[in-house]
C-alpha cells in the first residue's frame, strides 16, 4: 500500500515541478525569437507539458485506476548512503580542480574504498595511489592529454 502512495506522491511531485517549469521556467529561461518559423520554446513546452500530464495521470492511475501497482518504495537509508557518495564525488571533483588530479584522485579512490568497508591500509594506499598515478601517466604523460 505504502508503495502505491509513494508512487502517487512521486507523480504529484513531477506534476507540480513540470507545471512550475511550464508557467515560470520556460518564459524566464527561453529567449523569444521574432525570426524563427517555429518558436524556440515549442519543444520545451511540448516536453514539459507532456511530463505534467503524465505526472498527473500517474497520480490518478496509482490511486484510483490500478490498485495493484506496486513500484518502488522509498529506501531512506539507501538514499542517505547515496547522498554521502555524491558528497564524496563532489569533494573529489573540487579537490581535483583545485589541487590537481594527483591529490583529488587518491582522495576519491581512498574515500570510496573506506565507504565500501576496506580497512586494510596497505590495499587502500596501493589502490588509491596506483590507479590515479597510472591514469595520469597514461593520459597526461603518454598521450599528452592534460589532466588538472
Amino acid at each position: 500500500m505504502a508503495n502505491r502512495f509513494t508512487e502517487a506522491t512521486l507523480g504529484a511531485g513531477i506534476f507540480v515541478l513540470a507545471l512550475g517549469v511550464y508557467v515560470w521556467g520556460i518564459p524566464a529561461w527561453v529567449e523569444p525569437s521574432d525570426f524563427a518559423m517555429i518558436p524556440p520554446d515549442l519543444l520545451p513546452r511540448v516536453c514539459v507539458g507532456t511530463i505534467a500530464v503524465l505526472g498527473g495521470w500517474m497520480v490518478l492511475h496509482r490511486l484510483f485506476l490500478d490498485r495493484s501497482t506496486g513500484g518502488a518504495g522509498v529506501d531512506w537509508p539507501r538514499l542517505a548512503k547515496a547522498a554521502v557518495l555524491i558528497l564524496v564525488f563532489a569533494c573529489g571533483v573540487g579537490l581535483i580542480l583545485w589541487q590537481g588530479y594527483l591529490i583529488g584522485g587518491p582522495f576519491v579512490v581512498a574515500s570510496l574504498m573506506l565507504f565500501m568497508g576496506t580497512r586494510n591500509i596497505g590495499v587502500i594506499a596501493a589502490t588509491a595511489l596506483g590507479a590515479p598515478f597510472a591514469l595520469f601517466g597514461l593520459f597526461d604523460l603518454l598521450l599528452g592529454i592534460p589532466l588538472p
Partner: protein
Amino acid sequence: MLDIIITAFQDALTVQTVVLIILGVFIGQLFGAIPGLSALTAIAIAVPMTYYFTPVGALAFLVAMNKGGTVGGSISAILLNTPGSPEAAATAFDGHPLAKQGKGLKAMRMALFSSVSGDLLSDLVLFAVSAPLAVLALRMGPTEMLAVILFAMTIIAGLVGKSMLKGLIAAFFGILLATVGLDPESGTGRFLFDSPDLMDGLPISAVGIGILAMGEVLRQLILMRNQGNVSHLPMGSGRKEDETVSWAEYRSNIPTILRSAGIGTFIGALPGIGSSAAGFIGYNTAMRRSKKPESFGKGNITGVAATEAANSAVVGSNFIPLLSLGIPGNVAAALILGAFVVHGITPGPNLMQEQGRLVYAVFAAMMLANATNLILGYVGMRFFALIARTPAQIIFPVIGLLCLTGAFITTGEFGMKLVVGFAALGFLFRIFDFSFVTFIIGFVLGPIFELAFRQTYILADGDISYLLDRPVALIIFGFSIVTLLRTMYRHMKRRAG
C-alpha cells in the same frame, strides 16, 4: 577485378600498415572498454599524429581504432553494466544479466562474433555498392531523415520497462534536457542560466557517463558495501557451454545478425544518425521478431548479437557518403576526413578515379582490421574478464575515478561537475524505477529530431500536404505508427496477463 584486389592487399600488407592496424585495434578496444571514453577520443588524439604515416597506414590506423572501439564498448557494457561507448548501451540490457548469471565470457564472445560479422557485411556492402547507395543517401532529405528518426523514437515505447508512464516521463525529460543550448533555427538561448558553458548544450558524454556509468557505480557501491573481498560478478559455472558460443548458437542468431547488419548499414549510410540509434533499432527489432520477447532484458544472448551487429555495421557504411560524396556520416567519419585532408586527398565523387588504388588499399586494410579485431578481441577477453572480477571494493572506486577522468578529458571542468549531478539523477532513476534507457534515447535523438522537424517545417512552409510528395518518408512514417501501435498493444496485453 582480381588484379585490383591483389594490388589492394599488397598495398595494405606493408609492415607499417599491419603494425598500425594491430595498434589501432588495440587502442580502439582499450578506449572503447573504458567507461566514458570511446574510439572517438582516441581518433581525435591520433589524427594529427597520422601526418607522419603513409596515407594508407594513416587511414588504416584510424579505421582500425574505430572498429576496435565498437568491440571494446561491449566489454564494459557486459561486465560492468556501464557501456564504454553510447552505442553499446543496448548491449548492456542483456549482456549484463548474462554476466550476472556467470555467462559473461559467452556474452562477450557473442558480442565479438556478431560485431565482426556485422562489420564485415557492412564493409562488403561498402565495397560493392558504395556509389549507388551514396546517391540514395543524397536523396534522403530532411523529411525522410525526420521519418527515420521518428521510427527510431518509437523504440522508446518498446523499451519503457515495467511502467509505460514512467518510461515516457523519462523519455520526455531526456528530450527536454536535449533542448538546453542555442535554438538550432534562430540561435536564441534556451535554459542557459547565464552560463556560457551551456550554449553548446549538455555534453552527451557527461550525461551518458553520469546516468549510465556513475549511476550504476553508485548503486553498486551501496549494494556491495561491507561484502568483503568479493567480486560483483559470480564465478563462471566452469561449464564449457556457459563460456563459449557454439556453432549452433551462432547459426541460430545468423538471421538476427544479418537483419541488424542491414539496419546498421542503412543507418550508417545516412549522415548524422549514428551507431547508437542503429544499436537500439537492431535490439528492438530482434525483440519484436522473437518468439520470447519477455526474455529480452533478462539475459537473452540474441539481444547482445542484435545490438552489436547493428552498431558495428555503421562503422563500414558511414564511409559510403564520405568516400563517394565527401560528406562524413558521423563524428568518427568527420575526424577521418581530417586525416584525408592532412594527406592532401579530397574525398568525393572523383576520389575513385583519382585515388582508386588508395581507396581499394583502405578497403583491404578494413578487412585486415576486422580479422585483427576478431583475434585481439578473442585473446583479450579473458584478460578483461579477469579485470572485471577484481573485488568490488577495489574496482568500483577505480571505475568512479575513471568516469570522472573520462568526463574531464571529453568535456573539461564543466563536464566533470555535470557528471556528479547526473550520477545522482541516474541513481534516483534506478531507485524509483524510471527507465534511464528511454531517457538516454530521448536525449540522444532529441536534437536531431528537432533539427529535422524544423527543416521539414520550413521546406513544407507549414503545409502538411507537402508530405504527399515524399513517398519514402510516408512509408517510414507508416512503419513508425504500426510499430508504436503494436508495442502499445503488447504492453497492455502483458499487463493484463
